[in-house]
Each structure stands twice: as structure tokens, then as C-alpha cells.
């Protein structure tokens, strides 16, 4: 009841304020070139669980790592480019990858970067109990045996002098180089803290559950970077609260706006120049357990895909998304752009259901996490499915219970799902979510939680992984796309469009197609005395 009173009270307060002025409070000073200095403050909804690169795998924990650590490779757009490596080359047979390290790179503590720092970090990850990342290094010769403790050498990683690193793969793997841009592969100094990296910012303080403060790395290898003196990341700030803080000017930038907050911003022309949008490398939808009735019948799965109006789902996101025809988001190599999402066609859905022996309709249970957006979209889907005779009961669970319930064989057969890429490669979506290899035995949590096993898809995915020719790879993935589209192991939903709104004085910001929000090149356009300029 107290919550209701609070809601009412805030309503009265809001009505009393009656602020017609919804535009930005501050403006840019107008410097023509980047100015050094200043602190950028932003907030995340989650808690930083760890700053150990061997374990950080959630959004909040990965944010600080993005600034603390650089890796061998990085991305220009979605193309891999050298970062800590000066040059890199892959042997013609695709089995050997050699790196020459950049000269003059030092860790935050002043230690110069050497090839041995990578070897140390990777051995650490492979032996770290419960690290989610060991599997990414499995293609290296001897990595699995090393991880299992069966051998103490790691022949797949050869340190050839202080600046040369040679990796050997057990089999050609065209996607593997992407792993070397993941933060868990960042070099570490043996005996130093795991936050001691080579990235543009060093750890200043971490008050767990409250904030992480990063300060500029004065000896960063990229000349003239970073511009900012410090970055402050506030933890566990709910989205609605973050928006209020942003409006008051306490936050310099904000993402993941709730629908009403997004509509509020979109309705005001004053904010328009400061809104950044980019398609996210992710997919949202609903998974079926294809081994369990009624979802073991492809006609039922197709019927449900035809029954849901995906254009409306996107509409209900404030147009921050595009309907999906499969798993691969727009812009990813291997996506078959000629495929269209399942047409919204209730008559066809009814016909398919009747064909599958469900002319009288179906009773289904749908499991979703407790989340405002998920609940809103689920109710829209529920209404669509009711229109074709499928009565859906919604079961809302906490995030932990939701994961537990929906990733194991024998759990809920129909539930909300989503996937965020580990790296911008079709394999990060298709291998991870649909290869039969990703079905865990004995009711363990599976990434392939549709329990979809199609030998032809497996074969094409394996072939694409071995193929180095980009166009041949893309062709194989397009073939997988078509099979997956027809088999419909998911009720394909949408690919979200990421939105970031920055204060007018935040300059040099762009949403990165791989990393999303990226403050590495940001500078603050403040008054010469460092103060913000009121509008």
C-alpha cells in the first residue's frame, strides 16, 4: 500500500510542477576541437558482480572492463582491426595466427606490455573455476587438456620474445579471431591486480553496489586519448530514476529509456540532436522446446509465428526495433536479407493449427521475466494468439527463476528469450543457440534451449566455421538462415534499436555497432573554467 501511496504522491508532485520546459538544461560551450578534462557520469541498472575479466559476463560488470582493458584486436565498425597488436597474420591453412605487439604500451602500474602477459591471462582463464570463457579458448591446441589439468603446457600459445605471440588452432576456425577482442583475453601482469590493464582508464575506486570510478591512464598508448579525466559509473540505478537524474543533469548520458521516458524525449525537438540510435546486435523472441508437444510439430511453430503481429511489437517499443525473420540482426554477414519475417496472417495460423489437429485451439503456458517491456509485449502476443484460438497463460518469474526454468530440458517449453552477441559473427548467434552441440546433457542449462537438433544445420555451421573465404561462409550462413526460418524453433520477435541520449555538452559520442555505448573518444564541451553552461 505504501507503494501505491508513493505513486499517488509522486503524481501530485509531478502535477504540481507542471514543467512545460522539457528540453535540455545545459548547452555546449562551442569549442571547435576536443578539450581535455572533465568527468563523465553515467548509470547502469545492474550491480557490478566482479571486475575480474575471467568472470565478468554481465552488462554492469563488463562496462568498467571496457575501459580498464585493451585487447589484441578491436573493431572498426564490425571489422576486426589490430589494437594492442601492431600487425597480425593468419597462415594459409588457417591454423596459425601471429601477432606483433605494439611498442610502448604500458599497464596502469607502469609495467611494459609483453607477449607473456597474454599467456598468463589465458592460462588463468582456462584454470579459473566456473569461468564462462574457457570454452571460447577451446580451439587452441591443448587448451581443453590444460583446462582439465591433464597437462601443464599450453602448446597453442607460443610466446616468441617479448613482442611476438603465435597461436595454433587444432582446426581452422574463421570466427576465432573475434575472441581476441573479448575482454577476458586482455593481458594481465602476473602478481598484479586483475584491474591493472592497458586500457585508457585505470581503476580509481569501486564501492560495490554503489559506484565505480575510473581515472585517466596518463601513459595510454593512443596519442591524445582519452580526453576525459575520469568516468563515474553509478550502479543499480533503476531506469526510471536514471532518467530523472539525467533530466536534472546529474547524469551526462543515458540509455535503455523506458517507453514513456523515450516518448517524452522524442516529443521534444530540443533533444533531437542529442539522440543517438543504432540497431543492436541482438535478437528477442520466444523459444519453443521443439522436442515437446505441441511444439514438436513444425506446423504449430509456424502457426504461432504467423499469429503474432510483429510490426505491433515494434510499435509497442516506440519503434525502437525491427521485426526479425530469424536470429541474425541486420548488418551481420551471413544474414539473408531476402527473407521476410513471417507475415501476420491469423487465417493462415488457424489453418496450420487445424492441419496439426488443433482446430479447437490450444492451451499454453508462457514464461517471462519480471520486466515492464517483456510483460507489455507478452500481453500483446497473448491477445494475438487468443484471436487464433490459442489461450496463453502468462507466468512472470524473477530473473534467476526464469533462467532456471527455461534453459533446462524438461523445463518450461515456451518462454521469452533473447541473445546478445559475444562478437559480431553469425556463429555467435547460430552456433550458440541452435547447434546440437550446445544442448547440455542431464538437464544442465543449455544455450540451445530450443533443444533444436538438425544435422543439416550442424553440418553447415561446422563447415562455415572452417571456411576462411568470407563469401563462402556468408553463403553457408544464409542457407542456415533459410532452414531455421522454415523450422521456426523460435517465435522470431525483433531486433532492438539501441538509443542513447547525451547532454548537449557531451561531444564525440557515437553508438558503436559492436560495443554499444562507447565513451573512449568522448570529450566535454564545457566553459573554460570547466563549468556546465546553462541553456
Amino acid at each position, binding site marked *: *500500500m505504501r*507503494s*501505491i501511496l508513493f*505513486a*499517488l504522491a*509522486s*503524481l501530485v508532485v*509531478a*502535477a504540481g510542477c507542471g514543467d512545460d520546459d522539457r528540453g535540455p538544461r545545459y548547452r555546449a560551450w562551442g569549442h571547435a576541437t576536443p578539450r581535455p578534462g572533465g568527468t563523465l557520469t553515467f548509470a547502469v541498472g545492474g550491480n557490478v558482480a566482479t571486475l575480474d575479466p575471467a568472470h565478468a559476463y554481465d552488462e554492469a560488470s563488463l562496462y568498467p572492463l571496457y575501459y580498464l582493458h585493451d585487447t589484441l584486436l578491436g573493431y572498426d565498425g564490425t571489422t576486426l582491426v589490430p589494437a594492442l597488436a601492431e600487425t597480425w597474420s593468419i597462415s594459409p591453412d588457417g591454423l596459425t595466427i601471429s601477432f606483433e605487439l605494439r611498442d610502448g604500451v604500458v599497464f596502469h602500474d607502469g609495467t611494459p606490455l609483453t607477449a607473456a602477459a597474454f599467456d598468463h591471462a589465458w592460462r588463468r582463464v582456462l584454470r579459473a573455476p566456473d569461468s564462462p570463457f574457457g570454452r571460447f579458448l577451446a580451439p587452441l591446441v591443448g587448451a581443453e587438456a590444460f583446462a582439465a589439468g591433464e597437462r601443464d603446457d599450453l602448446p597453442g600459445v607460443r610466446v616468441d620474445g617479448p613482442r611476438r605471440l603465435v597461436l595454433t588452432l587444432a582446426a581452422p576456425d574463421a570466427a576465432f579471431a573475434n575472441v581476441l577482442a573479448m575482454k577476458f583475453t586482455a593481458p594481465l601482469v602476473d602478481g598484479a591486480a586483475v584491474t591493472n590493464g592497458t586500457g585508457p582508464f585505470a581503476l580509481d575506486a569501486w564501492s560495490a553496489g554503489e559506484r565505480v570510478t575510473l581515472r585517466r591512464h596518463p601513459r595510454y598508448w593512443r596519442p591524445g586519448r582519452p580526453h576525459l579525466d575520469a568516468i563515474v559509473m553509478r550502479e543499480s540505478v533503476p531506469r*526510471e530514476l536514471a532518467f530523472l537524474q539525467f533530466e536534472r543533469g546529474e547524469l551526462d548520458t543515458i540509455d535503455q529509456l*523506458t*517507453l*514513456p*521516458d523515450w*516518448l*517524452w524525449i*522524442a*516529443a521534444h525537438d530540443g533533444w533531437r540532436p542529442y539522440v543517438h540510435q543504432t540497431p543492436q546486435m541482438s535478437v528477442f523472441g520466444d523459444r519453443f522446446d521443439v522436442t515437446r508437444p505441441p511444439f514438436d510439430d513444425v506446423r504449430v511453430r509456424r502457426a504461432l509465428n504467423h499469429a503474432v503481429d510483429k510490426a*505491433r511489437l515494434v*510499435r*509497442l517499443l*516506440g*519503434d525502437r526495433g525491427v521485426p526479425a525473420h530469424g536470429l541474425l540482426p541486420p548488418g551481420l554477414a551471413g544474414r539473408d536479407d531476402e527473407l521476410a519475417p513471417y507475415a501476420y496472417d491469423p487465417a493462415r495460423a488457424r489453418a496450420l493449427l487445424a492441419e496439426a489437429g488443433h482446430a479447437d485451439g490450444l492451451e499454453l503456458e508462457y514464461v517471462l521475466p*519480471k520486466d*515492464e517491456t517483456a*510483460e*507489455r509485449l*507478452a*500481453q*500483446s502476443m*497473448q*491477445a*494475438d494468439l*487468443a484471436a487464433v484460438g490459442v489461450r496463453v*497463460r*502468462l*507466468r*512472470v518469474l524473477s530473473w534467476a527463476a526464469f533462467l532456471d526454468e527455461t534453459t533446462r530440458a524438461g523445463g518450461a517449453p515456451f518462454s521469452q528469450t533473447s541473445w546478445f552477441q559475444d562478437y559480431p559473427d553469425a556463429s555467435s548467434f547460430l552456433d550458440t543457440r541452435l547447434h546440437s552441440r550446445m544442448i547440455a546433457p542431464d538437464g544442465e542449462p543449455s544455450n540451445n534451449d530450443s533443444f533444436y537438433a538438425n544435422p543439416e544445420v550442424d553440418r553447415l555451421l561446422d563447415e562455415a566455421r572452417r571456411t576462411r573465404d568470407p563469401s563462402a561462409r556468408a553463403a553457408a550462413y544464409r542457407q542456415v538462415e533459410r532452414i531455421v526460418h522454415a523450422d521456426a524453433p523460435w517465435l522470431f520477435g525483433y531486433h532492438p534499436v539501441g538509443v542513447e541520449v547525451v547532454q548537449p555538452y557531451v561531444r564525440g559520442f557515437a553508438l558503436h555497432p559492436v560495443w554499444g555505448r562507447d565513451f573512449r573518444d568522448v570529450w566535454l564541451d564545457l566553459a573554460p573554467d570547466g563549468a556546465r553552461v546553462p541553456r
Partner: protein
Amino acid sequence: MQPRPWLARFARDRWAIAGVAIAVAITAIAVVGPAVAGDPTRVDVEHGLSPRGEPLPPHAGAVLGTDALGRDVAARVVHGAALSLPIAALATVLACALGIAVGVAAGYRRGWVDAALSRLVDLVHGLPYVLVVILLASALRLSALDGSIAPVAITLAAFGWPVVARPIRAEVVALRDAEHVVAARALGARPARVVVHHVLPALAGTVVVVATLVFSAALVAEATLSFLGLGPPPPAPSWGRMVAEGQPYYRTAPWLILAPATAIVLTASAFHLVARGLRDALDPLRAR
């Protein structure tokens, strides 16, 4: 036949009469409304949202506006009455049944039965209400009862009965020594007979007052549980859920909170006024 004095007193209480009027109106809406009002679950993006996708403010087509899915808020409030009132009623019936049983047993038997039951009442009273209610409601939602109104009603009853048991016990303690009860016992009537024929009828007034109070409290408690997501699952238009779903829109579409919140406050207040009027009418010595 003389008009009953308490009824005359009640009729003179303007607040109580107002409460009755509102309570009757809302009950009528709960009974008749769903047949008249539109579909509360019909999602209508085409006509129920602004071109930009915002909920529509009150207008001729939807007198209380539309929500984030373009659904008619008026239809949802009406259907919400048909959902929330039965839950509160079921909770009240269960709480009264248990509360009367415990109150009578404790008050009539006295001794260790009284001591044990009174401590139990204290114990339930002392529990951190919201926390335990959340626990219980969550547990019941995992049970076979999930999906019906039973989990919420049982949860509310499990915490509502001490409110009934305490005054009943107090009254029974007094009644036990009343002349007609002592006489009945002296004539050899068995305890069960004494209770049924001589004690319970005398409790009617208290029960009516307490039940109305419990009903009013259950209504608010149901809204709280639904607000926390522990009420009937979506898309059920329970008032508490409507407030919760409308909360992010408090600036852009305040009617999403105002409509169900007004319904909650109005209904709970109405039943509370009735309870107060009844109490004063039945117990003239306590009247203002």
C-alpha cells in the same frame, strides 16, 4: 412493530449512508458492469494509441483514456471491480470463519486454550505483514492454485483472521457469564448448543462490523499484492496491477494511475464508512 433503534441511528449517519450508496454502486458495477463494458484485454495499437505511440487521454471513445497497449481503461476498471471485490469477499469470508472459530474457542473455553490461541493471535499480529504476505503469496502462486483468485484470498485471510478473533474473544468472555448463557448451562445444555443458540446470535453485530472492516482492508491489501506482481497474472485488470503498470507513465499519462487508484480509495473508504456507521449504530455508547 417498532422500527429497530440501530437502523434508525444508522440512517441518521450521513457518512454511513454515503458509504452504503457508493458500496452498492460499486458492487452493482462489479456484478453488471462486465457484461456492459468492453473487452478489458483488447489490445488496439491502431486506434488506442497516439501516432507516436502514447496512451490516449480520456475522450469520447474511451472515457477514462487508454493504456500503454491501447486498451480501454474504463473497461479495465469495471472488470477490475469484478475481480477485486470477489477476492476481498472470499478473503473476508475465510478470515471471519477462522477468526470466529478461534475467538469463540478462546473466549468460551478460557484456560490453556485461550492462552495458546491468544498467543497465536499475537504472533500473527507481530509478523512483518508485507514480507510474510509476499512470501506466502509467492509460495501459493507456485502451487496448483495458481491462476485462480484463491492464492490472494487465502493469503489475505491468513493475515486477516486475528482482526476478527480479538473482538470476538472479548465479547465471548463477557457473554459467557451473561445470565441467559449461565441459565442455559445450568439447564444442562452442552457447550456446542450453548454456543450455537446463545453465543453466536449475540455476536452478529460485531461480526458484521468487523467483516466490513476486514473487507475494506482486504481490498487495499489485494491492490498491494497485485501492485507487487503477486496478484492475478496479466492481463487480469486488477486495480493494483493497473496502478503498477501505469506507474512509469505518471507524467505522460496520469489517468493510468488515477483511474484505478480512485477506484481503490473510493471502494475501501465506502466500506470503511459503512463499518464505522454500523459500529456506532449497534453500540450507542461508543457513538461520537
